[in-house]
């Protein structure tokens, strides 16, 4: 009797399920399905909420871990920077002492011979004024006891700054390479192709390079050393764009190697990079 009742219930349930299946309209859905969904969907929301809480906790842990790692790394970096700063400060002090010594001493025969061979010596000068209003075109330096002279080349540790165009006692006025009136014989370091670097609107321009010249963005441009003022090899800038211009030459723009806004100390080159052949023929050419 119980078995028969069980069979009957089973058949009834199967029929009901078949009715549900056949009565199902995919476009509308059944009412039963809607009820079931309403009953079950909150479970999905609960899981989603729990998952989002879990994600939040996991994210918090991960962020915490990242911050700890970053903190450790920054502490290490700070320590390294402090050590580097102390080293640089000691070097600066040494340089000051060396400058004082050099200023006190008369140039000896070795220095004179070195200058005669075209090798340059230098002195350190402080930048006391930077002409910002004119677009970083000139600066004024303080040479201390070493009086700067006209046409002396000024450079920084990164590259060419310019040349002294006017002097007044221990001070000198420097025409930056970015000045419109400035021109430096230069060459592409990679290909040794020579041209002329002129000052432009806040930047530099490499001119006199023909269309067939091999120039690429990223090429370094250095002083060519053939103009009788700037020694060979001082970095000037990096090529940022190469565009064909009407006429014979390419239009090449450079980004200066030196960030003029950060200059504090500069090196004033006292020797003149005149070719040896000229020096041999004209001993007075070294001035």
């Amino acid at each position, binding site marked *: 009797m119980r078995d028969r009742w*069980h069979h009957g*219930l*089973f058949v009834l349930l199967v029929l009901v*399920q*078949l009715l*549900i*299946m056949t009565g199902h309209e995919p476009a509308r859905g059944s009412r039963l399905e809607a009820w*079931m969904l309403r009953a079950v969907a909150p479970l*999905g929301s609960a899981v989603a909420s729990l998952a989002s809480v879990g994600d939040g906790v996991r994210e918090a842990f991960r962020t915490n871990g990242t911050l700890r790692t970053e903190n450790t790394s920054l502490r290490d970096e700070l320590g390294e920077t402090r050590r580097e700063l102390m080293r640089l400060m000691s070097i600066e002090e040494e340089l000051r002492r060396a400058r004082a010594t050099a200023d006190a001493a008369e140039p000896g025969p070795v220095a004179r011979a070195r200058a005669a061979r075209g090798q340059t010596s230098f002195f350190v000068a402080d930048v006391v004024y930077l002409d910002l209003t004119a677009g970083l075109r000139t600066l004024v330096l303080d040479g201390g006891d070493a009086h700067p002279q006209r046409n002396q080349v000024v450079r920084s540790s990164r590259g060419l700054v310019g040349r002294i165009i006017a002097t007044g006692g221990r001070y000198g006025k420097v025409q930056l390479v970015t000045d419109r009136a400035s021109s430096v014989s230069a060459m592409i370091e990679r290909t040794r192709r020579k041209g002329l670097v002129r000052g432009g609107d806040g930047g530099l321009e490499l001119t006199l390079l023909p269309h067939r010249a091999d120039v690429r963005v990223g090429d370094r441009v250095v002083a060519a050393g053939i103009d009788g003022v700037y020694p060979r090899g001082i970095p000037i800038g990096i090529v940022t764009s190469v565009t064909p211009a009407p006429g014979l030459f390419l239009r090449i723009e450079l980004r200066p190697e030196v960030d003029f806004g950060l200059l504090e100390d500069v090196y004033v080159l006292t020797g003149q990079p005149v070719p040896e052949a000229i020096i041999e023929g004209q001993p007075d050419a070294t001035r």
Partner: protein
Amino acid sequence: MRLVRYLLALAAVALVHIAGVRLSPIVPLLVDPILVLILYHSLESPRGWDIVGASVAGLVHDALTGGVYGQLGLVDTVTAYVCSRSRQHLVLLRSWRLGLFFSLLALLQQALLAAVRFLLLDGVEIMPWWSVAAKMVTTGVLGAMTIAVGGGLARRAKRRRREHRRKPTLGTSR
């Protein structure tokens, strides 16, 4: 009380199922916790409750999954009925036999589902074989574990009730 317990258990396995889907879309292809509940319920419940519970669970499962509504309800009802009828003729004392029984019922469920989809709902894809195999294994393992844990809990509750009855209470004569 039995109904409430069953509905709570159903809600719990539905939660597990949803959490599994959220974890990875491949999880429902590997494990079917609702089927485990249906089979456990069919073995442990009195006649009548087994297939009614399976129908409800199947419809809940249908609400969670795609396809034609009612297909899992039908298949789970038949599977629970087979499970319920089989338990009269089988002696399932060892856990590996229980696991095998659950695995075979999982295979039956998948076969029925494939048949329903193939015959009644033309053009619906059939489950991949590896999914069927994985469900057989997981249902077998989970079923055996559930029976073991559930049996242990039931025995403990029975013992506690018996001890409670034996305990003398105040006001009773010796």
